[in-house]
């Protein structure tokens, strides 16, 4: 069977979509809650941390070129330890997908379509991801290419129409509480982009060197967009509203009013969010299928799609119980859990891989 391949531009767009998906709506509130007026600095730090993480992932992929994330585990740790680690990662991705789907349902039913059952919105969205999983990663990459100009234009419209509402004094004073809250907020926000997932797809890129640059570029552009959004949230809404709103970016988009003529265009933000969310959830779905293929040595993974989609829905219903529960989990639990998967383990694997290579050379 011919291995599918994706172009550098497509890989860049998918990385960008993964960075933006979901974070666009929820990140400003988390950052403002900890770093207050310095939330935008924390967003910049978060972007820097993400770029550093991508560098670690690139070093890892260079150790065993052509291997995806799950194959890397087996190459570095050996067959059985690698498979065991892959199972932990599959669980992480499953819970992440379910939680994100829960988040989508919660947002849509609380802010936009309150009379529609949350289950219906989640199932409909999952159907789109299932169709995408059946068609393959190349189709998702092409869809991403089609969506990208719309995402950029809509984002520019959002930014430009918000400029008249800016209050520059809302970000003052800078460094009022010192650097510690910025570091805390920045590191917490950095674990919500899950850029590690792209390691599953990096072997599909034909030109390796340019692929690595696209990996970094996608993370950088996504980070810049998120930083801009956080900055605008603070500049337009102020700290209190950014911090206390469940979806500050949506509240921000609601404030758009150009000459009492251009109003109620929050749909723009919802469009950006839904487009990038679709990319993110489809990538997570694909990575789960790829992981199952590698761990269990399957000939094909298509037969698992429907069963996985039912499992994801059930996880979504059980994880996103209510906003208080999920808020507590995000604040107290998810950071350490994600840090383990996104930083500690890859860093450790990187060290083991380098040592192993040197020993082999000797």
């Amino acid at each position: 069977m011919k291995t599918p391949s994706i172009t550098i531009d497509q890989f860049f767009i998918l990385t960008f979509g993964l960075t933006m998906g979901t974070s666009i709506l929820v990140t400003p509130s988390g950052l403002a809650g900890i770093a207050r007026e310095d939330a935008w600095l924390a967003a910049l730090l978060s972007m820097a941390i993400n770029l550093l993480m991508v560098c670690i992932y690139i070093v890892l992929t260079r150790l065993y070129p052509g291997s995806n994330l799950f194959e890397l585990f087996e190459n570095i740790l050996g067959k059985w330890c690698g498979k065991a680690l892959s199972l932990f990662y599959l669980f992480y991705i499953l819970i992440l997908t379910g939680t994100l789907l829960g988040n989508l349902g919660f947002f849509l039913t609380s802010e936009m379509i309150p009379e529609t059952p949350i289950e219906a919105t989640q199932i409909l969205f999952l159907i789109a991801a299932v169709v995408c999983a059946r068609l393959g990663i190349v189709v998702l990459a092409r869809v991403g290419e089609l969506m990208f100009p719309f995402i950029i234009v809509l984002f520019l419209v959002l930014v430009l129409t918000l400029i008249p509402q800016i209050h520059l004094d809302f970000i003052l004073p800078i460094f009022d509480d010192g650097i510690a809250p910025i570091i805390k907020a920045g590191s917490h926000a950095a674990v919500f982009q899950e850029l590690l997932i792209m390691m599953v797809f990096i072997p599909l890129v034909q030109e390796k060197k340019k692929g690595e640059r696209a990996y970094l570029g996608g993370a950088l552009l996504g980070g810049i967009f998120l930083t801009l959004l956080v900055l605008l949230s603070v500049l337009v809404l102020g700290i209190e509203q950014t911090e206390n709103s469940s979806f500050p970016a949506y509240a921000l988009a609601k404030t758009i009013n150009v000459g009492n003529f251009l109003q109620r265009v929050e749909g723009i933000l919802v469009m950006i969010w839904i487009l990038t969310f679709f990319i993110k959830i489809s990538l997570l779905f694909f990575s789960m299928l790829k992981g199952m293929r590698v761990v269990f040595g399957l000939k094909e993974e298509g037969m698992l799609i429907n069963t996985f989609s039912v499992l994801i829905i059930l996880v979504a219903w059980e994880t996103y119980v209510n906003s208080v529960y999920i808020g507590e989990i995000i604040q107290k639990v998810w950071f350490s859990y994600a840090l383990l998967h996104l930083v500690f383990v890859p860093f450790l694997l990187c060290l083991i891989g380098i040592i192993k290579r040197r020993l082999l050379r000797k």
Partner: protein
Amino acid sequence: MNWYIILLLVMVYTLIKEGLQLKKRALRRDRIVFTLLWMMTLAVLLTEWRGNSVIRPLDWIRAATWPLSRWLG
């Protein structure tokens, strides 16, 4: 509306469609993995349907990462 019925129907359809295809293609390992995953999902679905929330995965994660979370403050 009982959403669990829809999920159960999807599960039954999947079993018939994918099960038959796997049987035709004689992929033993694929069939075992598919059956195990299908049975696990069905068990979760039925438990959920009965109202016993045994799978609160975030609670498991909270318990498992408690030492690390405490250490990180």
